[in-house]
């Protein structure tokens, strides 16, 4: 594994400077909305937290750092070499493949479609769509997280944002649980799937839902996607461990130990494979990992958009 100390320092530094863990400008990363006709005023703000957008970069970075983990070189050629400010400014933004960027952007565009179909009064302002800072929290840099969270929450508050619609579990957890606790600022946070109100047609389809830890356990939201599938006529062939008892995809360890991630991912994937059905994920990290494992997996939004 990599020394968490270096990694935390790099990430914290990046976020402090660029509001983004990879040190890339948000504008550089967040481009999916271009060409999508989105309002900038409305009842609730779509708040992606940039997690989907960052996936192509995470994927690339992980590939790099995997090579050196647990080698004697690790400490010297560790993550800092691949995500330092130098790289950010130069080649980093081009590291991610265009295909990946298109894929993850597509997910967000699907979500927009689903919200529109549900007649949800929402808007999007790319400039206000900040990374939540969750990774700092997860890694133990509470101070760094609070600073960042205060900044983000302050911006949103300043612009009068009260209601947000989130698209991934990590951002949802940050805004719903951590922000009120550490910034004192409360938002009305709903995930996009909690706002869906139409019944699509997916009769005959069978899938297996992979609940992310944060939805399954911390936020206890797993029953919502399950119910939506049911309403769509899609059968959820239950994996042995789901809901509160769901298994981790290994994602959270990625920046510290890709090897560990791999091990845990392979176990979860074995679990999921037992049903023999296509897998549906609802967290960008789970999705990315399952893709990496070679799974037949798609994002929940993609499935729902297909059946809308």
């Amino acid at each position: 594994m990599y020394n968490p100390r270096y990694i935390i320092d790099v990430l914290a530094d990046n976020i402090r400077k660029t509001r983004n863990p990879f040190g890339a400008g948000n504008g550089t990363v967040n481009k999916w909305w271009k060409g999508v006709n989105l309002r900038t005023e409305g009842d609730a703000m779509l708040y992606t937290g940039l997690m989907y957008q960052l996936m192509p970069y995470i994927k690339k970075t992980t590939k790099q750092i995997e090579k050196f983990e647990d080698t004697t070189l690790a400490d010297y050629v560790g993550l800092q070499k691949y995500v330092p400010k130098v790289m950010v400014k130069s080649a980093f933004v081009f590291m991610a493949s265009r295909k990946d960027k298109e894929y993850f952007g597509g997910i967000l565009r699907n979500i927009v479609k689903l919200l529109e179909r549900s007649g949800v009064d929402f808007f999007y302002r790319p400039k206000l769509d900040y990374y939540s800072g969750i990774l700092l929290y997860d890694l133990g840099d509470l101070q760094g997280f609070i600073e960042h969270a205060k900044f983000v929450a302050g911006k949103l508050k300043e612009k009068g944002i009260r209601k947000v619609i989130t698209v991934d579990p990590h951002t949802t957890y940050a805004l719903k649980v951590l922000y009120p606790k550490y910034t004192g600022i409360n938002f009305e946070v709903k995930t996009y799937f909690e706002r869906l109100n139409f019944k699509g047609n997916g009769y005959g389809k069978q899938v297996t839902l992979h609940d992310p830890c944060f939805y399954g356990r911390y936020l206890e939201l797993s029953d919502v996607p399950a119910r939506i599938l049911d309403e769509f006529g899609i059968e959820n062939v239950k994996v042995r461990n789901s809901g509160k008892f769901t298994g981790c995809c290994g994602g959270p360890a990625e920046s510290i130990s890709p090897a560990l991630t791999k091990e845990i991912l392979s176990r979860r994937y074995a679990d999921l494979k037992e049903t023999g059905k296509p897998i549906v994920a609802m967290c960008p990290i789970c999705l990315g990992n399952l893709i990496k494992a070679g799974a037949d997996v798609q994002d929940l939004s993609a499935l729902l958009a297909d059946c809308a």
Partner: protein
Amino acid sequence: MSTETMKFDALILGGGIAGLQAALDLADQDFKVAIVEKDASIGGKMIRLSKVFPTLDCASCITTPKMAAAAHHENVKIFTYCDLESLEGTGGKLTASVRQKPRFVDEDKCIGCRQCEYNCPVMVSDPEQGGFSARKAIYIPFSNAIPQTALMDVENCTLCGKCSKVCPTEAVDYFQEPRIFTIEAKTAVMTTGFELTPLENKVQYGEGKIPNVITSLEMERLLAPHGPYNRVLRPSDGMEPDSVAFIQCAGSRDKSMGISYCSRVCCMYAIKQAMLLSGALPLADIAIYYMDIRAFGKGYEQFFQNAMAMGIAFIKGKVARIDAGEGGAVRLHYEAQGEDGGVRTADHDLVVLSLGMVPAWNPAGTCTVSTGDDAFIKTIRPKVAPTLTDMEGVFVAGAAAGPKDIVDTIVEAGAAAMEASKYLASLARTVKAAA
């Protein structure tokens, strides 16, 4: 609808071992007692057990004499298959509205010959046998049931008419209606007992879906002489198990399952079952996974020490999770503690969940008796008068007032009978004084 009213000195709610003991202790003092039991037979959980700790005498040998004594006692009247609809009143005049569910068999005519049962073509999983074997759609609840009266399960009846045809006493009555009647009593004792923690609450333990993971009461049936297989077999395929494990605190002392209290009997019954198993399956490996062994009662610690001496393995560590293993095996995940410990998995042929106790009855909506945070009936003077509830003239005994073993239950039933008889005596004195 006009309802029949019957008068008694005492009403006993529940005909398990606590209720029977309380009824007998009152009846022996010449008080008139009514027992209202929700099941089709009296005997409660105890009559369904195999043998009981720490003496290892058979449960039936202890229960049947008390059942028979109550059934034949001139001062006791037993009403089975009855639900209490309401219990009202106070100060020596309690009115219970009772609804007797239809058996579709005339209780006075049925002679318990079981001809109906033999001839009925419908097999239904028998909950009395853990669902491991069938009963029929018309049946006597179990071999030593009292009364030996058949009842019909209309859900599974095809109305083929065979039972009626073969019944020698024309006791089958397809049209029987529920019967509502009133019991007036001066005092009441709640002996409503317990149920096992529902399996569905245990995500980690497979929610009852993993083959060969059974409940402790199911294990009682496998060990009992009238059990479904007449021996211990694993239910998935009839194999005689070579290794059996018990998981302690599977539904007790666990806030993640919403039950923080200790169920008090599970350690001992698991040790007992393990001992009986090592008799039935001398070659099998038997392990008990535990946090603390709570062998606190008279003779219990010695019983536990004997079990260790017999070679039963006691493994300190709460099982975290159960998975289905290969070929019908059950895989446990736990942390072995101590020097050479670590996270371990172990495969067993049969796994018993030592489930805890939850109350079988909630008085809310039926009477004003309160319950505690643990949902068991609240007692207001637990130290000096442990059977007093907050409803005047109403007492409680046994597992209705918290998990309890049989010995403590029987003693407490006696105590409740004492309180009830004192209450009756005080009423008599008041009446005398008023006259």
